[in-house]
């Protein structure tokens, strides 16, 4: 029989041992900045942000840990309004009404970090699927539900289309990806505009599979034969999903490529507040659904260490980090844009009175 003392020792010591055993693995770089930042928001740029921050941690300064929690753009906006995180991120830049809710003492900067495209990915054997503007909207309105629908056949002459149901996979959470996607759909379809409008979440037709995050939609498409959905380009690209060529404003069918995204973004210069949407870009070579994605940072922080870390990390992302964007399926921003954003980053300051 176990003695009470020994048993109690086991009960208390075992967890305590685990605590000690597990907490000894931090090695901060000496003399440099060290500390943590927490951010949350859009899942659209999440693979890139997480990779950037991890790369910064591994290669630049192991004393700095930037946590980025991919919870959707709605969450990113709400987090900076509530002041719960050090920074937020969103693919739908904040509206004026949202900016007004931020603590005026702290102010808000919207910093474009990268740009990307929303693509229509599908799990079929159809090579080079082409979707025209009306068909695209009708599929996501639930009006076209089979792959061999005449509307799809019309733009895909010479391709055998499967006689199968289209399983539409869509986001179940509030999302900047959905915002960019519906921004485009509203520009090309009056029915979409009146029924759903531009929004971070949509009341979808029955039968569309809901999935959380770009991750979830990508998984939903790759696990379900004959499914189709919209995801950020890098998710489709890295997962080797088939993507559809979409019809742009000029009437051309354009495959998603970094070059076609750059063409789409080249049209309009960034305004002073750096908030710019291009719901339906002009140009023959432009892919039709592109968006910038923003990090939402305060103008003032009360912690000098955090300001130093944030500036250092963001500057790294805007210079060194940009070199890694393209490999991940994001659009590297031209230096004219990054210079502007870096100037804004360098205005972040510490509030005197804490």
């Amino acid at each position, binding site marked *: 029989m176990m003695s009470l003392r020994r048993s109690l020792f086991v009960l208390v010591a075992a967890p305590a041992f685990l605590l000690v055993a597990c*907490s000894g693995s931090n090695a901060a770089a000496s003399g440099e900045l060290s500390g943590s930042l927490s951010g949350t928001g859009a899942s659209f740029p999440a693979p890139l942000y997480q990779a950037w921050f991890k790369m910064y941690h591994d290669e630049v300064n192991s004393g700095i840990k930037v946590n980025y929690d991919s919870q959707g753009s709605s969450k990113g906006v709400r987090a900076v309004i509530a002041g719960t995180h050090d920074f937020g991120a969103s693919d739908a830049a904040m509206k004026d009404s949202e900016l007004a809710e931020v603590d005026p003492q702290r102010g808000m900067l919207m910093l474009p970090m990268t740009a990307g495209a929303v693509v229509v990915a599908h799990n079929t054997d159809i090579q080079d699927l082409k979707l025209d503007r009306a068909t695209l909207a009708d599929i996501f309105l639930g009006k076209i539900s089979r792959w061999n629908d005449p509307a799809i056949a019309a733009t895909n002459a010479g391709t055998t289309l499967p006689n199968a149901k289209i399983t539409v996979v869509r986001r179940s959470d509030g999302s900047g990806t959905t915002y960019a996607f519906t921004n485009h759909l509203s520009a090309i379809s009056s029915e979409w505009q009146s029924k759903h409008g531009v929004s971070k979440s949509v009341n979808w037709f029955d039968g569309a599979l809901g999935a959380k*995050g770009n991750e979830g939609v990508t998984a939903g498409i790759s696990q379900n034969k004959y499914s189709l959905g919209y995801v950020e380009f890098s998710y489709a690209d890295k997962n080797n999903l088939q993507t559809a060529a979409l019809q742009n404003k000029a009437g051309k069918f354009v495959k998603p490529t970094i070059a076609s995204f750059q063409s789409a973004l080249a049209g309009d210069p960034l305004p002073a507040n750096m908030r710019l949407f291009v719901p339906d870009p002009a140009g023959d070579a432009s892919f039709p659904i592109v968006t910038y994605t923003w990090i939402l940072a305060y103008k003032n922080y009360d912690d000098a260490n955090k300001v130093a870390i944030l500036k250092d990390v963001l500057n790294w992302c805007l210079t060194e980090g940009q070199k890694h964007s393209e490999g991940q399926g994001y659009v590297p921003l031209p230096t004219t844009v990054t210079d502007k954003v870096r100037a804004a980053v360098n205005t972040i300051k510490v509030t005197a009175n804490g």
Partner: protein
Amino acid sequence: MSDLYAVAGLGSQPVAEQPRVNPPQLERNLRSVRNLVSAALSVIAVLLSMLAALPLFSVLAKLIAEGGASLSLQCFTEEPPTVMTAGGGFGNAIEGTAYMVSFGCLLAIPFGVMVAIYLAEYGLKRRLAVVIRFTTKVLTGMPSILAGVFAFGVFVLGVFGRPSPFAGGVALAILMLPTVILTAEEAIRSVPAKMKHAAVGMGCTASQVTWKVTLPTAMPGILTGVMLAIARAAGETAPLLFTAGFSFYFFDWSEPNSPMSSLSVLIYQFASSFAERQQSLAWTAALVLVCFVLAVNLIGQFIISRSPMSRR
């Protein structure tokens, strides 16, 4: 053993084993329809039982096939890979699970054992004890995600403003508590009254009897309950999803108010990843988690089977 499983939340009262009674083996006419029906039903029942056990083996086989391949020391020591990086592991998730389960234990075990002592020793038949026991059963049946919702409301929305290991640990403690209470009460109650009477006869106060006689004797049963609670807590995902969150780094103790990974949340996050390394790590983490949970369950069974209080 089934008693403790039953007490631990399956809800029924333990029952004593009864002598085996078999149908008479005298003359069996196999041409009789009645005997044939009986034999057929027996075959069906045994087949159904085997089929019911199949998923366990299917899960284990799949875990070993998919997760075994990437199993290496690296998995246990390194931080998770992002979509850009190869290699990496889930060391920080193991750290997180260990920390939050331990924290849950530190809260739930003393709390639970004290409640069990009250129920078994002081409040046996009182109305308050009946209410407490009923409340505990209610907590047992509460969906685990609601413990998460509660901790989310109090700590993530309220006190801290964002996910933290503290909120996750509290959510796990709420889930462990009823298991600890019910098993500990059962274990304490099964200590023979004779032993307690002897101690009282030697001048012990009631609390001394509890500390020096009852608890040591009941300890194997209590430990088994703790093991069951740990196994359950380690596998929980829903209550950690929005209380502790997910992180790519080992925890930074200088910034305790930041997200902490756990094995279960990592599995959920990486299950739907497109990066091959992340997906294979989801399987490996699942293999490690299941091995841990099964091992803790077996340890629990072992402790109770070695105990002198074990009834058979």
